[in-house]
């Protein structure tokens, strides 16, 4: 069945109609039927499942090309389906099913539900389109197409305080435009726009610029530093469903897909080269910084969003190493990432919905109240840390491998990241589940627990328990053989890091007597304290840098503009007027002056006649 679906899709414009137009149309339908919950649910499930079936069909089908003729000059809508993109499409489709389900249920009585679903579906259409594109131009088209729904969603709930929306659009827009530049330079260097025809461009000169721009664009979309800072803000004031869908899944899928393509096919990326080091450094900084930020968060969603950023750092390190280990690890890691981060955000949504708060200081002892959710939660946490038996394990180890092969500093960073992640999860988990700070009655009376919302969480958590890691799907998609197993020594070191985190937690807990304050001895350590303070104040926020930069530039421009206006409004008319007045004063009405002038004129003419004979 899947094969015949693939057959059907590979003809003509069918692909774009069913993979791109269909979600968009379903989105419009959902928007129109936003009041009818059941209809909405049916449409959502049907459409997302259909999409999944299509995706599976495509992934089973042979590689093929499709061109849609309706494009402007030199701007081809060319699509290609092959292993890597098929894998990504399937991942996206799987997650999408769960996300839609969750979203529909979550936003059951919310006034913004319909509009949100519309934006979500359009975004998904764009993601599909971008993954399937074979021409850089059309990929960019779909890629940037995400901006509009992204902005729209962030505005839905925040009519009065659109700061986050602005920040998001600015950062993502910046990365998208960098991507545009990168794509243009790349296609200029390669002489073609077609991804399938571009291979191993040299990373030097223009190519260097193109590579950097594309990577920045790709990583910026997924929320890597320095384009990360909107994610925590969004977690504060956007609907949870947004966090689930966008930073949690769609954006990361897109970004990592392109980063992978860039590193693997488009550019001749050499492991250990300068550019690789830079990308890895970016990844490790992202990892350490975000993980460190996790330690001081008191808000579940915010914490998870930092967690997402730091996990992305892992991913970037893996991909940036350029080694087989790293890339396979990165790809694994992506799949894990999508599952557990999405799952974590979903759970934070459930908690928020049930208890009306997402503040860690007010929540405690939840294990007994919502046990099923909490079990899933713990699975996700373990998976994030990379416990053996859970999904994160393999990918983490592979990335450790790769980073050690590149440079030991990166390995240390990775360990540090693991340590911090583990520590902050211990802090969160302990305080959420086991501690009893508040009497349960002080928490807002829990609303009806919705089973529907739990379904996707459960599915995701089950996906997180090591079911697929060994089956070589990733290796197949990348077209490489099975990679070697994990070195035992490294596992020991990894375990040591995790253990250290446990000990540190215990030490901290003893010291402060409170799970939430367990990391205070680190946070308030001299030196580090200042760093945290400045981080809180937003000194490390690239968005602030950008705004300051642009603002400074604008100030200069405005000052210059005043000068220009002065020239036009004051200087030139003033000069004309002054000269005129001077001449006017010279004509003072006295005859003698007039006679002087006459004589002067006569002399002038004589002079001309003498000079020009």
């Amino acid at each position, binding site marked *: 069945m899947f094969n015949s679906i693939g057959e059907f899709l590979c003809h003509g414009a069918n692909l774009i109609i069913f993979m791109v137009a269909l979600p968009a149309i379903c989105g419009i339908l959902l928007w129109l039927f936003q009041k009818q919950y059941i209809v909405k649910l049916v449409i959502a499930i049907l459409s997302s499942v259909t999409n999944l079936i299509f995706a599976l069909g495509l992934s089973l089908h042979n590689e093929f090309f499709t061109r849609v003729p309706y494009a402007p000059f030199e701007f081809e809508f060319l699509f290609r389906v092959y292993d890597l993109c098929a894998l990504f499409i399937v991942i996206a489709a799987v997650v999408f099913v769960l996300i839609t389900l969750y979203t529909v249920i979550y936003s059951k009585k919310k006034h913004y539900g319909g509009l949100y679903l519309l934006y979500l579906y359009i975004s998904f259409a764009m993601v599909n389109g971008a993954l399937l594109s074979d021409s850089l131009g059309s990929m960019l088209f779909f890629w940037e197409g995400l901006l509009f729904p992204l902005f729209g969603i962030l505005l839905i709930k925040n009519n009065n305080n659109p700061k986050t929306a602005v920040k998001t659009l600015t950062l993502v827009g910046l990365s998208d435009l960098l991507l545009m530049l990168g794509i243009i330079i790349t296609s200029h260097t390669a002489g073609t726009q077609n991804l399938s025809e571009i291979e191993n461009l040299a990373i030097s000169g223009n190519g260097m610029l193109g590579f950097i721009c594309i990577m920045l664009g790709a990583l910026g979309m997924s929320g890597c530093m320095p384009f990360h800072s909107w994610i925590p803000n969004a977690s504060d004031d956007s609907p949870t469903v947004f966090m689930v869908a966008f930073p949690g899944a769609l954006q990361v899928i897109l970004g990592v897909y392109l980063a992978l393509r860039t590193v693997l096919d488009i550019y001749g990326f050499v492991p250990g080269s300068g550019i690789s080091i830079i990308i890895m450094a970016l990844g490790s900084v992202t990892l350490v910084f975000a993980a460190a930020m996790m330690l001081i968060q008191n808000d579940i969603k915010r914490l998870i969003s930092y967690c997402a950023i730091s996990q992305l750092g892992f991913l970037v390190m893996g991909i940036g190493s350029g080694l087989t280990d790293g890339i396979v690890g990165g790809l694994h890691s992506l799949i894990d990432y999508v599952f557990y981060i999405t799952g974590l955000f979903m759970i934070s949504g459930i908690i928020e919905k049930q208890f009306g708060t997402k503040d860690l200081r007010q929540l405690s002892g939840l294990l007994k109240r919502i046990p099923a959710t909490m079990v899933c939660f713990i699975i996700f946490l373990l998976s994030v840390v990379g416990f053996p038996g859970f999904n994160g394990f393999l990918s983490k180890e592979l990335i450790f491998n790769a980073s050690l092969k590149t440079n030991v500093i990166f390995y240390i960073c990775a360990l540090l990241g693991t340590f911090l992640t583990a520590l902050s999860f211990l802090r969160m988990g302990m305080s959420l589940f086991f501690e009893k700070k508040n009497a349960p009655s002080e928490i807002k009376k829990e609303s009806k627990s919705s089973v529907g919302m739990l379904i996707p969480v459960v599915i995701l958590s089950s996906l997180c328990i090591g079911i697929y890691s060994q089956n070589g799907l990733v290796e197949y998609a990348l077209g490489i053989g099975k990679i070697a197993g994990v070195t035992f020594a490294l596992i020991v070191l990894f375990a040591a890091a995790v253990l250290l985190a446990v000990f540190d937690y215990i030490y901290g807990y003893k010291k402060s007597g409170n799970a939430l304050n367990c990391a205070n001895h680190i946070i308030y350590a001299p030196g580090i304290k200042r760093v945290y303070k400045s981080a809180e104040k937003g000194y490390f926020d690239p968005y602030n840098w950008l705004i300051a930069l642009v603002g400074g530039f604008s100030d200069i421009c405005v000052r210059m503009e005043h000068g220009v206006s002065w020239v036009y409004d004051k200087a030139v008319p003033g000069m004309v007027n002054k000269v005129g007045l001077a*001449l006017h004063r010279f*004509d003072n009405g006295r005859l003698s002056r007039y006679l002087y002038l*006459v004589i002067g004129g*006569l002399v*002038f*003419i*004589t002079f*001309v*006649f003498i000079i020009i004979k």
Partner: protein
Amino acid sequence: MNYLNYAGEAFLLIPLSAIFLNNICNKRFIEKHFHILTGAVALLQMIAAVFAFYIMDANQMLNFDFSVFGSSKITGIELFDINPVSLVFLFCIGMVAFVSVMISIRTIDVKKGSYVNLLMTLLIGMNGMVMVSDLFSLYVFLDVIGISSFVMIAMFRSRKGLEGSIKYLIISEIASIFILMGLSFISMKTGSLSFKDIGRNLLTNTFELQTILIYAAIILMIAGFSIKAGIVPFHSWLPDAHQSADTSISVLLSGIVIKIAGIYGIYVLTNIFGGIKAYQVSLAGLGIISVVVGALLAACQSHFKRIVAYSSVSQMGYILLGLSTGSTLGIVGAVAHVFSHAAFKSTLFTNAAAIHEQTGTLEIDEMGGLQSRMPVTAFSSTIAFLSTAGIPPFAGFWSKLLIVMALWGSGNQILAGFALCASILTSAYFLRLQKKVFFGKTPEHLSSVTEVTGSIKFAEILLTAVTCIVGVLFPLIIIFLHSRGLI
């Protein structure tokens, strides 16, 4: 040819007989109907000019000699001469005179008979000047023009008028002296002052006193005619004189007198000495200085008529530039500009008359917001200003373009470019004028102002129509000129 003879005589005899009629008729009758008399004279002059032009064109004549009163002719001596260029000038004279009459209906309340007399003598002077074929006769008619204008300015005996007229008289007499001196120097060499007899052959390359004197004559005559034309730096009398006169008289002065007395004189000189390099350069130099300085001066005046008068200075500069090329195209451009200048400058003075009639002032700082109250005046002044500034498709654009093309063709590219760009200054001062008079806030005392009626409105509409129609149909004129081999 008889017809041409009649037409030629008409230019002198009609005004003369008008004077006659004016003085024998009942005074009260004339006071009542003076405008019919003068208007008819002006109209007849225009008709005669068109008629003569038509006949000359039909017979492909380039000039026609005649004498008045049927006197016997001595061969070889031309007494009067009409040619297409002088006919254009004659037409302009008629047109501006007509406008003056239209204005005078409203502005002149006393001394109507004298106004008619003086207007007629002025007409005779101007007509004579453009028809004579002898430098001395030219000088005589120049003085006729000068004296008539002087009396006209002084006619109403306001203190300002007297002052202006005395300044005018003194400076203009200096000009006459210069011209006379030049004439005498030339006649020393040739013994005759007929245009035919003097030419470039006057100048020999040898360095002798007589050659120097001829050069001195040219210099003096340029200076003299420049004074008459109000070219910078000989311009200073002009705004005083034009401002102080009654508007119906300043329209004559600014619209036509400076062009006949000054520009036509320079045109005659150009025909004779146009080939001399130094002559061209000095004209071009004076022209460009006039263009710029006139405009700069206009930009800081606060009296409506003074602005318009300085604008005349500036525009005379363009005509001089056209003449400075010495080429046919340049002269065609200059003559075309004389016409368009006559049209738009008359419009502006008519506007001045309208505003003065309705508001009682011409100080632009005291006005404002008249656009909604005097729409016709505002509209016509806008068109006139655009034409002055050389904005297409109005008449002023084409003549300016021809002048610039001629300048360019004669190798003065930079000068041409500069002259073209200098017309932005024209826009500048007219925009200021427009803003202060027609836009902005209306002062209290002007809140009850209404649009002018009657003859002034008629003249405004008529002149605006002329400016627009000539501008739009100018390509036809170019075709015509081309078919006659003129350009």
